[in-house]
């Protein structure tokens, strides 16, 4: 009998305590960000969409090898000796034509491993995270310049 009443008392008491908590929260300021209107400030290291500054790319294939899901496709034939392809912004000499530099963002797992070995730091992960597209093929990023004769 005692346990019975104690149970009821406990139930009412704990329910009231819970109600007190929710009542308090009714008047605290919400923490939501009103997303399309406000946006989060992403920190520097955010791993979003990949971007390649193709002018600096020397076609070394290190990023393609580092990728665990093989979503980077590079084709870089060797330039003949007499052709000077110029230098990258950090002074590395370019020796290969980068005719194809495609990244399939639908496969990308955003691990960031490809950006680490890049010797000229031309492949980076940007902060962009909104890339809804109508066609899946739009997510195949083609960085190599078309129609540029090296």
């Amino acid at each position, binding site marked *: 009998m005692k346990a019975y009443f104690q149970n009821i008392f406990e139930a009412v008491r704990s329910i009231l305590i819970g*109600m007190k908590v929710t009542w308090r*929260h*009714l008047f605290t300021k*919400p*923490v*939501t960000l009103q997303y399309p209107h406000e946006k989060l400030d992403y920190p520097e290291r955010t791993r979003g969409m990949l971007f390649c500054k193709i002018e600096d790319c020397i076609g070394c294939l290190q990023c393609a090898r580092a990728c665990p899901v093989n979503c980077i496709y590079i084709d870089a034939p060797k330039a003949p000796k007499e052709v000077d392809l110029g230098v990258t912004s950090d002074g590395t000499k370019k020796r290969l034509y980068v005719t194809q530099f495609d990244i399939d963002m639908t496969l990308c797992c955003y691990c960031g491993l490809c950006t680490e070995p890049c010797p000229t730091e031309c492949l980076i992960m940007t902060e962009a995270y909104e890339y809804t597209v109508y066609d899946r093929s739009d997510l195949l990023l083609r960085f190599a310049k078309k129609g540029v004769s090296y």
Partner: protein
Amino acid sequence: MRNFVDQLVNNYEFLETFPRPLLYLIAMVAASAIILGFIAILVMFFVWLERKVAGHMQDRYGPMEVGRHGWLQSIADGIKLFLKEDIIPALADKPLFVIAPIIVFVGAFSAFVVVPFSENLIVADLNIGIFYILAVSSLTVIGIIMAGWSSNNKWALYGAMRSAAQIISYEIPVGIALLAAVLPAGSLSMRDIVLAQSGGFWNWFIFRNPPFGFVACIIYFVAALAEVNRTPFDIPEAESELVAGYHTEYSGMRFAFFFLAEYANMFLVGTIVTTLFLGGWEFPIFPSAFAFLNPIIFVLKGIALVFVMMWLRWTLPRLRVDQLMYVSWKVLLPFAFACLFGVSAWMLLLHSA
């Protein structure tokens, strides 16, 4: 209603040219339409309020996009539901599937006929008012069982069976707790019950016959929560267990009917508690001075009680089926009986003194 029409005819002679039955019919349809419209708008407000209350209790905003602070959200949702494809499962029992939401809807809305918004603002002051509400609102369970059975879905069936067991069990404490208010009023008519509590909040039945009036009010409120399938008694639709319970297979407008009925039922519970325990349309102090506010006060009291239901919902977890039965039969029922006896004893004492 009849009296009202007769009065009208007496006052405006040109109405005599119409046959009386026709006038009665027109008056009835008009009153029903007004009630239906008013409750429907209120229900939409409740849907919005629920989402806002839930949001703010969880440190969120809730709907914010449609209108200022999302106040038009319910209308947007209504339009969405209305435009949705009407899906009837291939193996469903089609006729039952179609009429189930209508029965639930009718059960919920027809109870408002006897709800006294103020002394004269009442569609039909039946002499068995509260009894009528109990009867009509039990119609819901039939609709729910039909929905669960006809969906041809095991989850829906579970929801329906749970609902049937639950509503039938909770009818009993509800009825007995209501008697604790009917006894001192000496009438089943909703209007008479409110009139019996007139003259300030100390006359309300919640404060009369202490502490039995108060306990009866709490018992009624808790049991009614179970009857309208609200948390912590929402096991018929328990989303984490039964997916969506009896309305698993419903979509579009049919789902909207269930949804509207649920919120209409919530408001009905609010109005019943207001009428029977919280002095109905009366302002707490100097009721006669604030008589012009009566309908507003009544609705506000109802809304406050609906808010308490929302508050409970966003605080509490859900009971299990057997615990639900325990609460009904072993806790609420004995206490309801005790209240009934207590109120009777008080009344005997007061009358004999």
